[in-house]
């Protein structure tokens, strides 16, 4: 039990680490949000599952936490991305197409 839980927490932290690395390495704000959102969501799932193995009494609370995180994490990313686009945040030169810009005009 304890070993399985610890391994899951470790995997979760590894995912967090890679997502932090992604935030540094990606060229513009939108790509950074991409790595940020996805990896933190899965990382949280792993860490919370690991904690569930370590102390089974907390499972109901952890499930509720998980549901709230899965529901709210993407919403905050939409808001940041939308605000960045309205603010004309520069996109990476690799970007091939911006339909949102065309639609605004």
């Amino acid at each position, binding site marked *: 039990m304890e070993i399985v839980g610890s391994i899951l927490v470790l995997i979760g932290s590894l995912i967090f680490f890679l997502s932090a690395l992604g935030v540094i390495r990606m060229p513009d704000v939108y790509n950074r949000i991409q790595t940020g959102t996805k990896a933190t969501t899965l990382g949280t799932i792993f860490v919370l599952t690991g904690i569930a193995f370590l102390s089974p009494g907390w499972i109901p609370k952890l499930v509720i936490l998980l549901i709230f995180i899965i529901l709210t994490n993407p919403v905050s990313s939409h808001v940041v991305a939308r605000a960045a686009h309205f603010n004309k945040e520069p996109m990476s030169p690799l970007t091939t197409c911006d*339909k949102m810009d065309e639609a605004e005009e």
Partner: protein
Amino acid sequence: MKFKAAVIALFLGLLIWLGLNGSLGREVLITGIIVTVITSFFYIGSGVFRDVHLTPRALIALIAWIIVFLIELVKSNIDVMSRVVTPKVRINPAIVQVKTKLRSRLGRLALANSITLTPGTLTADIVDDTLFIHWIDASTVDIDEATRKIVEKFEKHLEVLFG
């Protein structure tokens, strides 16, 4: 139909309360029932959950959606991780436009959230039935093709659930 939102709110509230307490003791149960019944009165006639279908088919769709969602989430993470750790960041980003058939607001919210958590896509804005999506590795900028690639796998389940 008037009481649908109230009933859903009652059950959700009670579930969350019991989960947070982690016990089924008599005091906990009685307090929870009193408080959730009082709060659910405020939901009578409210349209928050108007679009949720409460049929057995919707339940199957919900389960199917959760499974598809989890698989996509793991896939998206492997995808993003591989992009992060390769020496040269290989991306081909674009903001593309897709259309959705979902009409309800709750359904669109669920769709936008699922899209954000799937491989390389991030919902940036919703205008009526058009979603603007930042795609980290855009293989197409055509509306129909992008819709087919990004939206459809979730839409078919969410359509049953929310309409």
